[in-house]
């Protein structure tokens, strides 16, 4: 054990004197944490730029009553950064000029002429249609439980009223009113904006018909504590950077020390291969802890993180560091050349970072991405950290800890086999 500690000590000293290693182990994850917390955890709603051309105007040039109400609802969502296009200009030309040569978001909502009258006649038609449907229910012979008891005479009077409404409906022009959204195919947020506009239009329709919101969602958390958005990103970032630091650290040290004859020199002392492996893992575990502590410290002091690591989180950090040290040993054992080995570890690390849900929730990803993620060891480390830190399900952390520990044992065994100490 004494010799393993010497190996860990030399690894940490060497690491602390390589600026790029310190940057990518500590400073880079911190920078990403700050960026993520600023971009996603600022507390404000996202703001989508949109041009609006209202073609439905009054004689004095002002917006019609209904189009003004619609625009007011749109504004009240605080989700749009609206630029108006005058009714008498070509919307496409205006938008292109406004965006300028450097480009920008090309997204135009056109409120057509006749929007106001169309909406009003449509609303009246809808209300009459609802009333007719209700009257038809009352005229049915079959009586629903709780429905009022209607006499035959009353039914006859209702039938007369319903027939009169049929005549009114024929006189009302209740065609659909079409809003037009013009967008660029490269608009990555186009689908989101489209969904929001549909939601607003539906609410607008319901309001006009007089339908109240019968279904209302109340949000509750299984956790007793209140967390900020950055609390959710922290476990992903910690997991991702434990992986990258450990895999790349072990791979680069093992291959470079082997190429330069340092491993050979150490193998000529009483140091054993097992002690070398244990020392390397120990050093990476210490680095993983340093990274975790610094991320939490900055999170608590600067970003308002409230999550507090418990023993399960500590165990996850240890298991994760061991797991990815084993993976690093495996890469270094299989690829002898320093540059190729580091390239290979990057090729493993970066896709895994993005596919394991470190930076975005996997729920939003396509099915095949979720299938791939379930095969990646990083997913279980991140899930375990999230469960341990911010979820009210410690069982989730325990299951992920068990999977990560199992993978750690497997990687270390295979990595040890590929780590050569003596020549044949």
């Amino acid at each position, binding site marked *: 054990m004494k010799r393993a500690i010497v190996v860990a000590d030399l690894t940490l000293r060497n690491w602390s004197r390589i600026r790029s290693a310190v940057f990518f182990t500590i400073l880079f994850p911190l920078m990403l944490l700050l960026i993520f917390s600023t971009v996603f955890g600022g507390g404000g709603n996202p703001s989508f730029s949109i041009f609006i051309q209202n073609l439905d105007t009054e004689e004095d040039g002002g917006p019609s009553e209904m189009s003004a109400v619609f625009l007011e609802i749109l504004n009240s969502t605080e989700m749009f950064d609206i630029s108006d296009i005058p009714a008498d200009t070509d919307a496409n030309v205006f938008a292109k000029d406004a965006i300028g040569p450097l480009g920008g978001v090309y997204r135009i909502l056109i409120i057509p002429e006749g929007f106001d009258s169309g909406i009003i006649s449509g609303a009246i038609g809808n209300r009459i249609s609802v009333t007719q449907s209700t009257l038809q229910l009352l005229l049915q012979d079959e009586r629903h439980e709780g429905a009022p008891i209607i006499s035959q005479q009353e039914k006859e009077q209702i039938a007369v009223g319903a027939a009169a409404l049929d005549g009114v409906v024929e006189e009302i022009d209740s065609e659909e009113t079409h809003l037009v959204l013009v967008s660029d195919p490269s608009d990555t947020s186009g689908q989101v904006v489209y969904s929001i506009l549909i939601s607003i239009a539906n609410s607008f329709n319901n309001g006009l018909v007089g339908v109240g919101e019968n279904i209302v969602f109340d949000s509750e958390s299984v956790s007793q504590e209140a967390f900020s958005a950055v609390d959710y990103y922290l476990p992903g970032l910690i997991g991702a950077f434990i992986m990258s630091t450990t895999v790349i650290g072990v791979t680069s040290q093992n291959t470079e020390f082997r190429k330069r004859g340092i491993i*050979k020199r150490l193998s000529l002392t*009483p140091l054993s291969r097992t002690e070398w492996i244990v020392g390397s893992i120990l050093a990476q575990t210490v680095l993983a802890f340093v990274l975790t502590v610094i991320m939490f410290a900055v999170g608590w002091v600067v970003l308002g993180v409230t999550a507090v690591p418990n023993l399960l989180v500590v165990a996850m950090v240890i298991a994760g560091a061991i797991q990815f040290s084993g993976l690093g040993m495996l890469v270094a054992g299989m690829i002898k050349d320093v540059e190729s080995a580091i390239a290979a570890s990057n090729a493993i690390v970066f896709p895994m970072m993005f596919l394991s849900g470190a930076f975005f929730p996997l729920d939003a990803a396509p099915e095949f991405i979720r299938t791939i993620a379930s095969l990646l060891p990083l997913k279980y480390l991140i899930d375990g950290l999230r469960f341990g830190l911010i979820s009210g399900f410690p069982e989730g952390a325990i299951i992920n800890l068990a999977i990560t520990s199992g993978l750690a044992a497997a990687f270390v065994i295979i990595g040890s086999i590929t780590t050569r100490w003596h020549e044949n």
Partner: protein
Amino acid sequence: MSVWTFLIITCLFNDKECLYFVLFFENSNLSSVAIKVEGLVKIYGTIRAVDNISFEIKKGEIFALLGPNGAGKTTTLEILQSLRKVTKGSVHVLGYDVSDNQNVRKLKKEFGVLPQDFNAIDKLTVKENLSVIAKMYDKHVDLKQLILTLDLEDKTNSKFEDLSGGLKQRLGIAGALVNDPKMVFLDEPTTGLDPRARRDVWRVIEGLKKEGKTVFLTTHYMDEAEVLADRVAIIHKGKIVAIGETNALLEKSGGGRTVILEDVPEYISKEIKDRFPEAKIEGTTVRIQISKLKDVNNVISYLTEKGVEQSLQVTRPSLENVFLGLTGAHLTEEGELV
């Protein structure tokens, strides 16, 4: 038949206690033999890197294994260090059979190594690098004293990456001595160094002999082996082609001394060639190979008689001559055969 085999057989026929004593003495460190190699063969695929070599190294001597690149020097050395497995034959170092895995850790505590192209950790200082190696042993020498001995005190806190080639090699030798070893392996200790740095390293190696340490040295530098080694083995294509005390090898296989005359007029060169047919004429330089030192007198008498007053130089045989005589090839500075 080795002396030990003879003694064992003798004891077998005479006295059991004698046999135990002889067996104990042979296998213990009390023996005067530090390394014993018998019929060593190392095969990589279809290549016989080491081909049935045998030799012994006595305690306290500097032994040089001399040969070109690829001759099998480092393979032999790494087998002695138990880094590589033996294909055939037996190898004992300090009484330990290197093929027995149980001996390896014990053996490593007793020898020190300067590997070929020695490197340490770039970002660590001289003291830290030395300390890393020292802490791998249960006991080690005083590092301050070791740094002083190797004349590295000014560089104690310098990073390895900032050291010159010579200083790096000295740190490597310090690393080989950190556990106060009985045996030191030095693999090409001066390759790539400038002449001054080479001489510095030679002084350190000579100091090891004075401390009574056994030194196994591999080199492709003839002068290095000649200056440092008590005994030399010349290895060529995996086989030992000559082995013995350095002086004896020079006398036996060095082709004698050479009398060199420079700026000799052509007509005199021809006369010298007539008198000494073994003489070689290269332009105005004449080289006359002589087998015994007293033959120099014959040459001088002849030249005096002929009234030749050119300056005369007598060179002693070198390992280069020995190597040339045995292999028919020269060794370049880079260790290649030409």
